[in-house]
Structure formats: C-alpha cells, structure tokens
C-alpha cells in the first residue's frame, strides 16, 4: 500500500499525471496551464513532462477551448479543459450546451464526447466578481452532461482519473477554497465509483446533504450538533448529475428529516430537485419538509459580504433546529 498525504490540489495534479501516463490521447487545454501550471497550479509541471502538444496553453477564449475540444474528441482524443474560474465558463456555455452535451444523442451514439471540463467553483476566497460562483445547476439541467463535485483529496485523485476515462462529457467541479485541504490518499486503493453518493458520517436525527466545499461545512455542523446531543448523518453527494439518491432515501427513511446544503442560489438549485425527489420517494417517512440552505437569490456579492451569503455552520444548524422543531 502506497499512501501519501496530499492536498486536493496536489491530488488533482497527480491524478492528471496518472491519466496522461495511462492514455496518450489525453490532452489538457486551458489558459495559463502550461508554463505557469494554472492559476491554482493544478497542472504544475505537466507541460514540462508531457510537452506542448499534450498540455496546451490556449488562446484566451473559453468557447474556443470547448469548441476545439469537440473536434479533438471526434478525432479520438480525450480533452481535459480547464476553465480558469467558474464565472468564466459562460463564454463556453454555448459549446457545452449545444454541442458537447448533444453530440452523442445527435449522432445516435456514433460520436462520443469524452471531454472533462474542470471548473474551480464556489466562494470563500475573497475574490472579485465572477471568481466565486456555483454554476452546477445550469449543467445538471442539461441532458447529455454529467456533473460531479469533489470534496476531498481521495476523490480528487481518483475522480479526475475516472472522469477522464469515462465516455461521456463531465463537468468536474473542484472546491477551490478547499484546494489546500489535506488527507491521506492510498494510491493503490480500489476507488469508489464516480457516480455514487457516500455517507461520510453516520447519524440518526437529521440527514444533511452536501457536495464539494459544503461537505466540510456539513461535517463541522455535525460535530457541533453532537456536542448538543444531536446526531446528524452527513451524505457527500459527490455526483450532481446523475444524482445517486438511493443512499439518501435510505438515510431519510431512518431520520425522517433532511437538510440540503449548497453555495449556489437556493431557488431552482439542486436542493429543489433533491427535495422533490425525496418527497416523491419518502413521503410517508418524512417528519418535516426537506429544508434548503444555500446562497441567496442575488448575484454573488462583493467579498466583504460573502460570509453573509455563504452557508456556514450556523446556518446549517439553524436549518437542523427548524427541521427538528417541525
């Protein structure tokens, strides 16, 4: 067994390196990902070792990155596109939604789009506008795309490799404010499937669902709740589309209560869909309505206000209280 203590950022870097070693068709594309190693250094050292044809510093145009990735995929390559920040994905939105997502269906399966779209997402880093957003619902709403969000170094290391090996286009969301979080990663392990949610803390009173950066917040809330004698079960959804809700249904049938947490605006966010699913499936087990804790329905605010905007431990606990009081 080979284990290493890795940050999420380093785990992604090693995972990308492994994927490139395993398959010569893997090509990384993005802005500043070569010499600089990306603004978050996720691709650090890869251009030096794999060359400029496989780690491509692209012109500064996101639609160009995704549009040329479509052509490379048609030619048998497996492009991994880095979008520098969440808010910069929108120039590429047309290519992602009208082309990447639809090509397989359009061609009745004759053309595959094994493209990974890496996006550092979410807030909490004190950045300027467009650098702190959570655009997952846009992509989860688009048939043909799959969307995953990692929360820890183990899933980062394995997940990026699994996403690259998968035959469908995947929006791969990286929790940018957690890039520096560390954990021990077993590099010889058999990883969990990519499209599976996971119970990360057992509990009996309330089920708390989160993904990406909010998993840590949910776990902190569970820790605090435990001190007050409340037992929260925390599920890391891991996959946003398709949702893997069977473990969630099993949990909610036991606890009867559920709180969904995400940074994205609450209205019409993932929490709304999840609440509907739980209600349809677990109606007779529910003791309280499914509650949502999310960003407000405002543009992501200037950073001096982001602590007010983002769900935190207290807002999760407040929702837990409201659920238990129902």
């Amino acid at each position, binding site marked *: 067994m080979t284990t290493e203590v890795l940050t999420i950022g380093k785990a992604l870097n090693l995972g990308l390196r492994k994927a490139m070693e395993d398959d010569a068709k893997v090509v990384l594309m993005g802005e500043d990902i070569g010499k600089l190693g990306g603004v978050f250094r996720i691709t650090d050292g890869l251009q030096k070792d794999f060359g400029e044809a496989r780690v491509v510093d692209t012109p500064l145009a996101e639609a160009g990155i995704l549009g040329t990735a479509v*052509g490379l995929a048609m030619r048998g390559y497996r492009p991994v596109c880095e979008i520098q920040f969440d808010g910069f994905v929108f120039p590429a939105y047309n290519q992602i939604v009208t082309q990447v997502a639809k090509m397989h269906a359009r061609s009745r399966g004759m053309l595959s789009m094994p493209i990974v779209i890496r996006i550092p997402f979410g807030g909490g880093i004190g950045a300027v506008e467009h650098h702190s957003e959570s655009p997952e619902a846009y992509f989860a709403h688009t048939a043909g795309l799959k969307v995953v969000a990692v929360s820890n170094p183990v899933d980062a290391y394995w997940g990026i490799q699994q996403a690259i090996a998968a035959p469908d286009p995947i929006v791969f969301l990286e929790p940018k404010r957690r890039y520096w979080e560390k954990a021990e990663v077993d590099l010889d392990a058999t990883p969990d499937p990519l499209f599976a949610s996971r119970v990360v803390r057992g509990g009996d009173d309330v089920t708390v669902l989160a993904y990406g950066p909010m998993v840590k917040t949910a776990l902190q809330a569970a820790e605090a709740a435990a001190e007050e004698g409340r037992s929260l079960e925390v599920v890391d959804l891991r996959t946003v589309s398709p949702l893997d809700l069977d473990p969630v249904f099993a949990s909610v049938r036991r606890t009867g209560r559920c709180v969904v947490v995400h940074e994205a605006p609450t209205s019409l966010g993932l929490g709304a869909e999840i609440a509907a699913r739980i209600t349809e499936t677990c109606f007779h087990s529910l003791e309280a309505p499914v509650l949502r804790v999310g960003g407000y329905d405002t543009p992501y605010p200037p950073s001096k206000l982001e602590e007010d905007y983002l769900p935190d431990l207290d807002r999760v606990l407040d929702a837990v209280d409201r659920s238990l009081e129902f």
Partner: protein
Amino acid sequence: MTAKTSITEVVDPVPGADAPHLPPGRGQDLVQLLTPEGDRVEHPDYSLDIGDEELRGLYRDMALVRRWDVEATALQRQGELGIWASLLGQEAAQIGAGRAMAADDMAFPTYREHGVAWARGVDPLHVISLFRGVDNGGWDPVATRFNLYTVVIGAQCLHGTGYAMGVQRDGAEQAVLAFLGDGATSQGEVNEAMIWAASFSAPVVFFCQNNQYAISVPLERQSRVPLYQRAAGFGFPGVRVDGNDVLAVLAVTRAALAAAREGQGPTFIEAFTYRMGAHTTSDDPSRYRLASELEEWKLRDPIARLKAHLSRSGAADAAFFDAVEAEADELAVRIRRGTVEMPDPAPTSMFDHVYAEQTPPLAAQRAEFVDYHASFEGSRA
C-alpha cells in the same frame, strides 16, 4: 446636438465590390476560370487541368443536387418536411468544394451543405430525414467523413479546427474543410476558430459561402470589408472566388486543402455567390431584397454556365444532357417515395443515446415512459 451620421442611414456598399450583392469583375480579386457565358479563362495563380469526363461529372452532380433541392422544397410545401433549407444557386460552390476534398479529408458543414453531402456520398434521404423530423441527420459522420449538420451558426468552425489539431497530432496528411456563411463571420466562435487555426497552424480551410444574406440581413451589416480580406488580420491567406464557377471553386479549394495537408496552415475562401431561393421554406425574401437583384444573378447561374461550356467545347452532347435529366427524374422519384415511406423513429429512441453510459435516473424515466404508453391500447412505445 446632432449625431454626425444617423443610425438609420444606409451604409455604403462593401468597399471593393462594384455593387453590394453582385460579384466584382474579373481581375478585381475574384478568381474565375469560367465566365458567366461559359467561356474558359485562365488565372495566374490557379490553373485547372481537367478532362471532359470530370467536367461532365461536375455538371451531373450540380444538376442532380438541384433536382433534389427542388423536390425537397416541393415535399415541404406538401407537408412532408417540416422545413427545408434550399441550396438553389449555390450548387457550384458546394460541388466544387466537395469534389476538391480528398477521400480522407473531413468536412464540417452548416445545415445547407447538401451539395457537399452529395459529393461525400451521403444518401439524400439521410439529409431529408433531418428536415422531416425523423432524426438529426441519418448519415454516419465517421464513414462519410462529413460531420452531421450544425445548426447553431458558426459552432462547427471550432470543431473543424479542433479536429485539424488532432490531425496534426496524429501526423496525418489530411485536411479539414469547415463551412460557414457570410452571417457566421460575425460570430465570436468563428473568429476564435480562425485565431486557433492561425496560432496552431492547423490544417483547416474555412470555406465561406457568401450568399449575400443572413436570412434577411445583408452582407454590409456583417462586414465593412470584403470578407476574404478578414483573413489577413488573422495571419493567413484569404481568397475570393466566383462561387458560381465550379471550376474556380474546385481549383481554389484543392490548392488550399493541399497547402493545409503540406503543413502551410489555414486558408479562408470566400465563395461569392447568391442564394436564389429563400433562406428556408419559412422565409419570404421578397420582403428584403429586390427582384432585379435576383434577375442579375439568374444570368450567372452556375449550372447554365457549365452547360454552355460543355456544349460549346463539344465535351457533352444532347444525349448526355438527356441522360442526366432522366437520372434526375429517377432521383426525384426515389427521394419522394423514400420520404413519404420513411418510418417514424421508435418513441423510446429519444432516451437511448443521451449518454454513452446510460444513467439510472434516465433509465428509470424511460421505463416510466414505456409503462405509461403501454397503458394505452395500440401504443407504439
């Protein structure tokens, strides 16, 4: 305070053109090898060594494609197609470009490249099926090396460029022909494609059919310079060719594809032509263009000029033209019969290729759909 110019003022014709929607004369940056009257002329940069059989083949291609187009328009009018995008008037541009391609070159069409489809061996019924609403194009884009139609304007230029980057990485001697129209030159993605192609010297040729109108909006709203001059700003050659001259289109496109295969990078070709019909069967061109303009262009018909040349040079006789006419009649019958007899797709098929690896939620939705429809007598699902 008054504005220097009114925002409603009609803009000047595109500089470099004698009239906004008529081709410039020969010698004014217009490659022409066959005059509108059907006379063979030489061009200093582009020569074409072509035999009589190949000439007759080009005529046959254009005549059959036109008949297909006329039949499809009629089928739409009779309610058999939801819509049809006519290529009438653009046969030379499309057949010239399509026949310039080598077998393993790759084409990225818009939604009007029926002539190129024909040249790539795509069955007309596989194009018709898209416009009938049966599928999104029934042909195999890998086997025909003719991608499926792209409806979002200009998006395919990036796909072609990316594909060409793959060709480069494979070290293959192939080129890509990416199609676009005059309107598409205003799209950001098209400009991005040209930047990418130039920066990576990708083996891609951008083939722009300037048919003068983007639905109703004329060329002068898209560009203040002749389109081929745009290429200079991106750093690669731009060529304007008489788009109604199949020989010139063939020569120019062949040369550009050869240059791309040899590692010389991209070329932008502006095929100056005219959409003789409507944008689609839903359109009414009488609202935005003059009848006199159409009459001018009728004199430049791409098929008539090759016919004149073939007749005058003795490369084809009346029997040949009769045979092509008979073949066109047969094709029209086949297209008509094939269209009306085309089966609808299985209702469940909409679920089947959303993903390469089906997801459990979508599989469940499909099962619900099947159960729901099974609850009705005589269900198709």
